[in-house]
């Protein structure tokens, strides 16, 4: 136990940095999920066959993007994106560049979750919107997103937790973060105590996120 505390204390700065790196990657990929994934999910919902704004070309492209990104083994996806990452960032290494592939995944995961949640909104709500002469934008903002809001927050929590899991792989391109730290300072240095305690930190972070997500979601739900 003393050994564990000592090795923990000796690495406290590194752990702090790793935590910050994970936070950075999560913040940016979540921002992408909300800013791009949410509209994309709404678009997939509206343009789907039989949807309110049915459009086969738009739906096919968006749906294909989500399916391909989600089925791509993430490690290979990171490698696959290297040319694009280099073109945009000038480097393929470091936390900033590593966030790039994570954003793609965040967008794809959240878009699919958004679509599923919107499919659960009672059809009567869309009927009401139509009868009031709501425009497409009004239907989304004043009806769909209002009724789906607690589910959307809950889904964002799930997406965040998946993204933490995905981010652990990004050590391969120098992304850093808690997963990378546990692997390099714990596993590869045969310091299993440090490895497990880092994993415990990850679990605590996930628990906190999950609890916060549930609380916000419940507070928004009046059904």
């Amino acid at each position, binding site marked *: 136990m003393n050994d564990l505390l000592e090795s923990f204390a000796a690495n406290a700065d590194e752990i702090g940095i790793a935590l910050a790196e994970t936070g950075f990657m999560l913040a940016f990929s979540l921002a992408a999920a909300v800013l791009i994934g949410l509209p994309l999910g709404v678009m997939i919902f509206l343009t789907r066959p039989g949807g309110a704004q049915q459009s086969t070309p738009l739906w096919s492209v968006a749906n294909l993007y989500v399916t391909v990104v989600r089925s791509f083994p993430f490690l290979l996806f990171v490698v696959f994106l290297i040319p694009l990452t280099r073109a945009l960032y000038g480097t393929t290494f470091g936390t900033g560049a590593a966030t790039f592939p994570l954003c793609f995944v965040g967008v794809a995961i959240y878009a699919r979750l958004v679509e599923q949640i919107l499919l659960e909104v*009672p059809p009567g*709500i869309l009927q009401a919107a139509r009868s009031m002469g709501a425009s497409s934008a009004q239907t989304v903002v*004043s009806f769909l997103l209002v009724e789906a809001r607690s589910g959307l927050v809950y889904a964002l929590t799930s997406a965040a937790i998946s993204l933490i899991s995905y981010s652990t792989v990004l050590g391969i391109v120098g992304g850093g973060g808690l997963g990378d730290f546990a692997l390099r300072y714990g596993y590869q240095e045969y310091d299993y105590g440090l490895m497990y305690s880092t994993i415990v930190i990850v679990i605590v972070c996930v628990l906190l996120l999950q609890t916060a997500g549930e609380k916000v979601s419940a507070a*928004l739900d009046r059904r």
Partner: protein
Amino acid sequence: MLQATPVALLDGVTVTYGQATALDSIDLTIDRGEIIGIIGESGAGKSTLLNVLDAVETPSAGRVLVEGTDPTELSARERRLLRRRIGMVFQGFNLLSNRTVRQNIALPLKLQRRRDPALIAELLDYVGLGDYADRYPAQLSGGQLQRVAIARALVTRPGLVLCDEPTSALDTRTTEDILTLLADTRRDFGTTIVLVTHELDAVGAICDRAAVLENGSLMSVFPIAPSARERPRETSYLAHARRVLGA
């Protein structure tokens, strides 16, 4: 009663979906200020007729005039604007569960970037829900929810309100309350009401005329006999059960 231009006029209106004929050459005039019942069994074409009146469904043949305009000559946007002048009440209420009663009633105005808190307060009192303005739909009973929906339909002061099975999800006592509210609405605001229902009692209670649909055809339109108005006023649920079940 005002007998100016009719609120709606259907002339040989036919609606087909592929091979199936949902409405077959319907001729119908809906006069200003009347309450007309559209009755028929499931699949008779009641909902399609309602959608034609709400400018949602475009006839394959024939001519429609709603509030003096032909929806088929309008762009999609103009049809949307026409729909804003027509109120709609649904069987399932279709209220937003994450919005308060007051916000639900204000929604049609909000979509038109209008605000009228005084009118909303007045309507809340009119439907008897003045004390419920800040409640959420989940906290209300079925009859109260339909009152909210009626207030929401009236907030734009529409000349025409379309009701799609408005009492079919309600019990007997509540049904009577909602029908009374609809009849009062016509009396107090001069609103023309189209009541689509399969409940003949409801039509007898408040309608001036009944239009009977069968397999997409309009079989007959006739005035409601005064005797239909005199429905037994049950004093209790027991009295109602006794009358219906014959105990």
